[in-house]
């Protein structure tokens, strides 16, 4: 706690301890087991359906209806719903079995890609805002952001293998219908300039390359600063400039990525707030993950000058963006609820009717529990409370992404089951392993950063 006196800050070298290695291995193995269980459970098409009805008896009724509706849809076209007017077509119930694997890989890839990108954004914002308090922990986002290529490759594989089953616009693209044909969809045709297979691969690839180059640049500037003399601010100034460039590019492109990859799962539906909502979901998760890493690294005895004050600020970030997440969540829902325009409601209709439990659980895990749990100052300064609430938040936000994708891809009757949990744990393990390895690559303290002293003296007061 800053007492106005000089605090000695020395360079430290992080060692990836066997304990941490074991932890990430356990995560990976657990993930593999769960994912394997999930995949083994898939079986054939019919079996999977009957298995699902056994697991969730209450869902069974819905499922049968869904099947009937899908069948009716094939025969008669759109099925009108008396209460809500024409129902959007939730087709897909008859997807190949392995679609679930590709969809899982896609959300896990997207989730961790966004986590690493948002870490880069966080890092950039610290430079742009001239933030001093966070210098002590700046190596953690710096390590997280190196993860960008891994989830992106996974995402590309998932898209390559499963795009026609995940995105019904991609499926539609293959049909090659003419305006005179039955089932011609002018909305999808109108969007085909943006939603097409070339765009799906080229656009994210180009952006990831740009982001990646900027990430390497910022990291190399940070490394060059470590080797420079103390008091040399040229690297800091350069970092500010590159951070600003990245922030502008990222700010404009991240929404488009969310539209292209996630929102287009319900290709008829659109929401202008969707990109931002996605950003915040991952932003708050990334800050939670960062808090976990800081707490662990401190517990191992590193970063003595990073105190409870820094943890408190991370807790405040978690709390603040939890509220902000809820604000966007409600904003998106409220306007659609009020306007009651059928094509806008499709997104919420299936989620509220067929996934009511998940829908409410999502709100509870991402808002109610963290809001009440982190409201008090003492909670934000207690790392056990942060660990429990943070774990709920991370799972909750992953479940949030799941809820954005799965009902749109599969229609009704899906569960957040072993496979989803398995893939998440598997990638959490890989992510942890990667980040710890990246942390060992350079000193844990940015010794020549001009604001290091300020960070060491950071104090939020009594």
């Amino acid at each position, binding site marked *: 706690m800053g*007492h106005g006196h000089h605090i000695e800050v020395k360079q430290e070298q992080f060692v990836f301890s066997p304990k941490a290695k074991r932890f990430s291995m356990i995560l990976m193995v657990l993930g593999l087991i769960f994912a394997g269980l999930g995949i083994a459970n898939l079986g054939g098409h019919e079996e999977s359906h009957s298995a699902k009805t056994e697991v969730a008896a209450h869902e069974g009724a819905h499922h049968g209806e869904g099947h009937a509706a899908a069948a009716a849809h094939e025969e008669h076209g759109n099925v009108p719903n008396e209460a809500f007017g024409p129902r959007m077509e939730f087709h897909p119930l008859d997807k190949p079995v392995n679609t679930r694997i590709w969809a899982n890989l896609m959300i896990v890839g997207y989730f961790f890609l966004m986590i690493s990108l948002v870490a880069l954004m966080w890092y950039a914002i610290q430079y742009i805002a001239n933030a001093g308090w966070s210098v002590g922990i700046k190596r953690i986002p710096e390590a997280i952001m190196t993860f960008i290529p891994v989830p992106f490759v996974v995402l590309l594989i998932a898209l390559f293998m499963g795009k026609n089953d995940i995105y019904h616009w991609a499926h539609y693209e293959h049909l090659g219908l003419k305006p005179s044909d039955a089932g011609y969809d002018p909305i999808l045709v109108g969007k085909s300039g943006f939603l097409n297979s070339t765009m799906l691969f080229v656009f994210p690839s180009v952006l990831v390359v740009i982001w990646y180059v900027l990430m390497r640049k910022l990291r190399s500037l940070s490394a060059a600063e470590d080797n420079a003399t103390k008091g040399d601010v040229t690297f800091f100034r350069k970092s500010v400039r590159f951070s600003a460039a990245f922030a502008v590019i990222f700010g404009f492109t991240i929404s488009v990525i969310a539209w292209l990859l996630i929102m287009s799962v319900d290709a008829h539906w659109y929401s202008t707030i969707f990109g931002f909502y996605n950003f915040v979901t991952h932003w708050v998760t990334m800050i939670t993950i960062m808090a976990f890493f800081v707490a662990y690294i401190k517990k191992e005895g590193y970063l003595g000058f990073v105190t409870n004050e820094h943890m408190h600020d991370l807790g405040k970030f978690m709390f603040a963006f939890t509220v902000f997440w809820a604000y966007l969540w409600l904003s998106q829902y409220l306007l659609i609820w009020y306007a009651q325009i059928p094509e806008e409601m499709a997104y919420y209709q299936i989620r509220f009717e067929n996934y009511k439990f998940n829908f409410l659980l999502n709100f509870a895990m991402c808002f109610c529990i963290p809001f009440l749990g982190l409201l008090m100052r003492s909670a934000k300064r207690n790392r056990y409370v942060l660990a429990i609430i943070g774990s709920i938040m991370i799972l909750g936000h992953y479940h949030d992404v799941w809820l954005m994708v799965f009902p749109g891809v599969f229609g009704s009757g899906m569960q957040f089951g072993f496979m989803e949990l398995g893939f998440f744990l598997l990638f959490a393990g890989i992510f942890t392993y990667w980040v710890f390895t990246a942390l060992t690559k350079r000193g844990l303290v940015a010794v020549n950063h001009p604001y290091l002293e300020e960070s060491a003296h950071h104090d939020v007061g009594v």
Partner: protein
Amino acid sequence: MGILDKKLSLRDRNKMLIGVWEDEDQLMAGASEIAHAGVHIHDVYTPYPVHGLDRIIGARRSKLARIAFFCAVTGLTLMTTMIWYMYVHDWPMNIGNKPVRFTPSWAPVMFEGTVLCTAFGMSFFFFWRNRLVHGIKNELLDIRQTDDRMVMVIETTDGMDEKAVFNMMKNHGAVELREFHNGVQTVL
């Protein structure tokens, strides 16, 4: 102004020992030594926040957060009751054929009401607690304490060695030493 918190007023107290500083590092060092010597520091008035000083002088945590919470709960209750009375009980309206009870459209009203009550409540309590109510005369010990000087105030107790306290102040760079008693300041 009977409703104002008397605790912050410097009147009706024992004799006060006052040190004036120009430099916050020296002030911190001085405050640290005085506090370690077991002398209770009543308060330090600074023109800007000096980080770490609150811990040295043993300032208690502000109760503003608790007040904010109670204001928020009040606002939430008030707005929920209001919208229920107006929209459900007294004059239900059919707007777009939506249900009237506890719908998402209540959320913005409840939220804004909570924020409004919290913001106003906190402002009022903050000003009230800090004796910044309109019409009250300020009690600056030194006109420069809002500009470039830092003023440390120590209330004397029965067995206090005043000379030692003044010496500690002086050793740590206090530029002026004073006494304050019954509204009269004496420069030493």
